[in-house]
């Protein structure tokens, strides 16, 4: 019984740790320069190249 309880506690702790690891934080850096420009039909006449 004691072994079973310990196993259940271990599984519960592992599940809680997994949830924390899976959900915590945000990441990345937004672009400091540049922005989106809408393309018109004329923009597709030539291949789209690196601006």
């Amino acid at each position, binding site marked *: 019984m004691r072994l079973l309880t310990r196993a259940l506690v271990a599984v519960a702790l592992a599940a809680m740790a997994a*949830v924390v690891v*899976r*959900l915590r*934080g*945000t*990441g*990345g*850096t*937004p*672009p400091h*320069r*540049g*922005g*989106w*420009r*809408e*393309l*018109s*039909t004329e*923009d*597709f*006449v030539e*291949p*789209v*190249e*690196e*601006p």
Partner: protein
Amino acid sequence: MRAVLVGLGAVGARSARQLLSSTVVDGLLVLVRRPDHVASAVASLDGRGTVELAELSTEAFLRGLPEAAVVLLAAPVAAPYAGLAVARGVPVVSVADAPEEVRSLLALGGDARRRGVAVVAGAGMAPGLSCLLAAAAAEGMDELHEVHVATAGTGGPACARRRHAALRELVEEWRDGAWERKVASSGRELVWFPELGGADCYRTSRADPLLMAEAFPGLRRATTRAAASRRDRFTSWLPMLRPPHPEGAVGALRVEVRGRRQARASTVLLGASGRPAFVAGTVGALAAELAAARLLKPGAGGLAALAASPRELLAELSRRGVRTEVFEGAGPTPTS
């Protein structure tokens, strides 16, 4: 010409309107699981052609094939119906984004080539528009190395359910000529979308890498991510806790293409924004029109592989109201 449309959800309804307002299709056979649920949607199709509504079954589908110039699958039932159509020499367009469904369509490639018809797998927003944007960006490069696709938002309820499942299924990414399995909802990346701004995106099970690897031989990496909240990721292993909305709000797409141009590293970022159901419906309808007119290459694949000129398709989509954008002003790409 007459088209067979399977499914009349948010995407199917948009495709139906586009097809009926085109010069290629003048009649539609609409097959759905429950015709009584879509009677009003059928009545609202105010195109110039005729619309016939019937319950989806193999018999009804086969009855419609002799007169059909194209089959547009806008419901997750692709493989069996696509096989029947290809066997009778009728081109097929599917808006499905699930890797398994797309794989089953790609398996029809040999038969499709023999019969000279196109099987377009993934003709929605992503895959679909994502393939066209990647192809357009790749045209300006000497070597193409990587394609990374990210999306935000969903179309109708079927699309929302599919996204929910895609956040828990195993994800396959293309890396150095082989498939690598990754855990869904992992690999957080802040993505800057047109219209929407920044959103945390995670690996998701979608067919973009599959179609990119097929379309661009020599591609080193192809990944796909979707914007998701903590609740989305935490509940992805549960059934959906509430019914999805009839149609999602404005969504966005971002395609990052990396390669080499004139002996230096080059990165092109293209994107699109709009209601995903409208974008997917418009891409699907345009692909169906081209397939019906036999203007796509025979065989099975995505739009990047089958379209003769992806840029012409993007120009046409722009004329039809699909807003595409380029990210510029970020400065030169560091040499690699």
